[in-house]
């Protein structure tokens, strides 16, 4: 009798394991008459809570669609990769790395066309370039940042140097940095020792060149004279010891007051405000001989649809919601709004810490990052990063021409 009971228990136990094992994948996607949409985000912590609120709101407003938020955090790329590999991609997902993933994404041009011209033109034009691949649009812009020059007002005051302005050139920056290093304990300027090649291309653009031509050919571009000038300038600043190269992105050094200036995206604003750093923001200095304004790279995020999604109309409905004015407004503080109407109505351009990012955005039209042009970008980027590090790492400081020559190969 006892044994029988034991056997029954085991059978039940194993049955439940098997059933629950299968249950995960055989989730019926339209149970209860509602279309279920899976939505993947890379955000973490409080940002996810905010997103969940917005998702809940959407679900309340729609009787026929139910969106579930899946927060992948730092595993985002791994999980999206794995999802695409196994045909189990979320219906809607955050996206920035289009060259790597566009194969698995739904082209959205037809959907956009249906919404009319005004829908499209309300977004800042430059943003569309960053959500496209091979002439098709794969994402609707959600947020972006350009890069700007942050400066510590207290250190400038201490050294008695005028604050940076929008018409500064790098020569002005160098002169100011020198004075600051001499008169205070802080270094005048800092830049990343191991910059992300994607970000660093903006300096080459600003000096009238790029990593490669439209076909992804790098020879004659990254090792061009203009390009060498850029790298040489940064290396010289480091060698002359009024600038320093930082292990991380430079925010920590800036917060600690050990550097007076650095170039970074709008990500730093919240942290710096919380710390109570007395800082200012302005556009990146231009190269004096380049005869053009400085240009910034865009770090942009968009919302994409999986090409394997079974409920594309519902997914589009949600994408439209997530990128509308209401949600743009709700995200202010974590994302810079991407809609002209929202920037106007919320008076973003009057806020001096945000306005320069939009100025940079307008100055930065018409450049295509090398990541969109070079097929095996992630591997090329790894090589480039190594070359850049060879130039900027204080324990190597390799000659610029040699390091860039090896980057071409």
């Amino acid at each position, binding site marked *: 009798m006892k044994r029988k009971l034991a056997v029954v228990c*085991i059978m039940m136990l*194993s049955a439940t394991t098997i059933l629950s094992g299968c249950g995960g994948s055989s989730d019926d996607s339209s149970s209860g008459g509602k279309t279920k949409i899976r939505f993947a985000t890379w955000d973490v912590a409080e940002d996810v809570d905010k997103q969940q609120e917005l998702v809940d709101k959407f679900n309340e407003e729609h009787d026929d669609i139910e969106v579930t938020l899946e927060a992948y955090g730092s595993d985002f*790329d*791994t999980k999206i990769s794995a999802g695409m*590999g196994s045909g189990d991609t979320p219906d809607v997902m955050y996206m920035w790395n289009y060259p*790597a993933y566009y194969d*698995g994404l739904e082209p959205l041009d037809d959907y956009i066309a249906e919404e009319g011209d005004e829908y499209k033109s309300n977004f800042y034009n430059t943003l569309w370039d960053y959500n496209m691949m091979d002439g098709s649009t794969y994402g609707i812009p959600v947020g972006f940042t350009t890069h700007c020059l942050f400066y510590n007002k207290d250190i400038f005051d201490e050294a008695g140097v005028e604050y940076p302005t929008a018409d500064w050139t790098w020569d002005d920056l160098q002169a100011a940095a020198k004075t600051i290093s001499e008169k205070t304990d802080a270094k005048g300027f800092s830049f990343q020792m191991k910059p992300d090649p994607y970000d660093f291309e903006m300096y080459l653009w600003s000096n009238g060149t790029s990593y490669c031509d439209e076909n992804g050919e790098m020879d004659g571009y990254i090792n061009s004279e203009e390009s060498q000038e850029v790298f040489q300038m940064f290396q010289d600043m480091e060698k002359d010891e009024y600038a320093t190269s930082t*292990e991380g992105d430079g925010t920590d050094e800036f917060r600690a007051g050990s550097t007076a200036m650095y170039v970074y995206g709008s990500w730093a604003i919240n942290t710096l405000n919380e710390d109570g750093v007395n800082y200012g923001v302005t556009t990146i200095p231009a190269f004096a001989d380049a005869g053009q304004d400085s240009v910034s790279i865009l770090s942009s995020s968009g919302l994409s649809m999986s090409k394997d999604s079974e409920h594309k109309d519902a997914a589009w409905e949600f994408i439209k919601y997530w990128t509308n004015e209401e949600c743009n407004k709700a995200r202010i503080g974590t994302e810079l709004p991407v809609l002209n109407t929202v920037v106007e109505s919320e008076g973003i351009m009057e806020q001096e810490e945000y306005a320069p990012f939009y100025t940079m955005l307008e100055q930065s039209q018409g450049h295509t990052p090398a990541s969109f042009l070079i097929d095996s970008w992630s591997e090329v980027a790894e090589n480039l990063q190594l070359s850049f590090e060879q130039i900027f*790492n204080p324990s190597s400081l390799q000659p610029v021409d040699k390091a860039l020559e090896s980057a071409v190969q």
Partner: protein
Amino acid sequence: MKKKKFLKTATPYFFILPWIIGFLVFTFGPLLLSLIMSFFDWPLTGEKVFVGLGNYIEMFTQDDQVLKSLGISLRYAAIFVPLNLILALFLAMLITQPLRGVKVYRAIFYIPAAISSVAISIIWSWILNSDYGVLNYLLSLIGIEGPDWLVDPAWAIFAVILASAFGVGTMMLIFYTDMKNISTEIYEAASIDGAGPARKFFSITLPIITPTLLFNLITSIISSFQQVTLVMLLTGGGPLQSTYFYGLMTYNNAFKHHKMGYASANAWVMFIIILLLTALVFKSSSAWVFYESEVKADNKKKKRGGK
């Protein structure tokens, strides 16, 4: 009658069924799939093309990074494994001493092993930072100018070793439990014969715990080759790729460059290398590992032979 007999023989299998299912689904299945993948050009999206041994050939003929990374991993293992063993053994000896408050120390030494390696990486990246890190500050107090741990390629690997040695607690605990099992009579007998602490350690403790030593040696060889998290978060493979471990290279090939097939081939080569190293250690173990049961069996044989 027959039914009852079936149930009787089947019952144990039902007990281990959940584990078997778990093993098949989560270990054996992926293992098999990765072996198959390693013979394909397997991008994330798009066509998968069968390339036979192409991935393996590419690894050793075209990709310089494979041998470089393998070298880095080997160097790391060569320093880390002995260091970790000695450190664990030393700490285990300390916490077996009959002292007041030894339990507190035991907990303190073990705590780092209970912290996730992500947290450890972040803690150490602060400790080792050349500008505001506490380690260089402490060194400066005794008049030493500390190196740029995470910037200077010559020092970065030691920084990684230092950070991984932080998790020595698990191994220490295994040594400790084994040492606790050694009967005190043996030590007493040795003391009467006039053996000092060093003599007792090398002639009693060490020989008795050799099976544990073997176990720890093998697991730490394996884990040192599989080290990914720490380098990924602490150094990102840098500076100047001086800590670009084999495991990190494999990870990047798979999840950064999206070359699943190639990365699977990387992983299988590592598997084979680990297998060979482990086999080598096992093979050598007959020379230096002593099992009590073996010794007893040997004695019996000898006795019988003597008769």
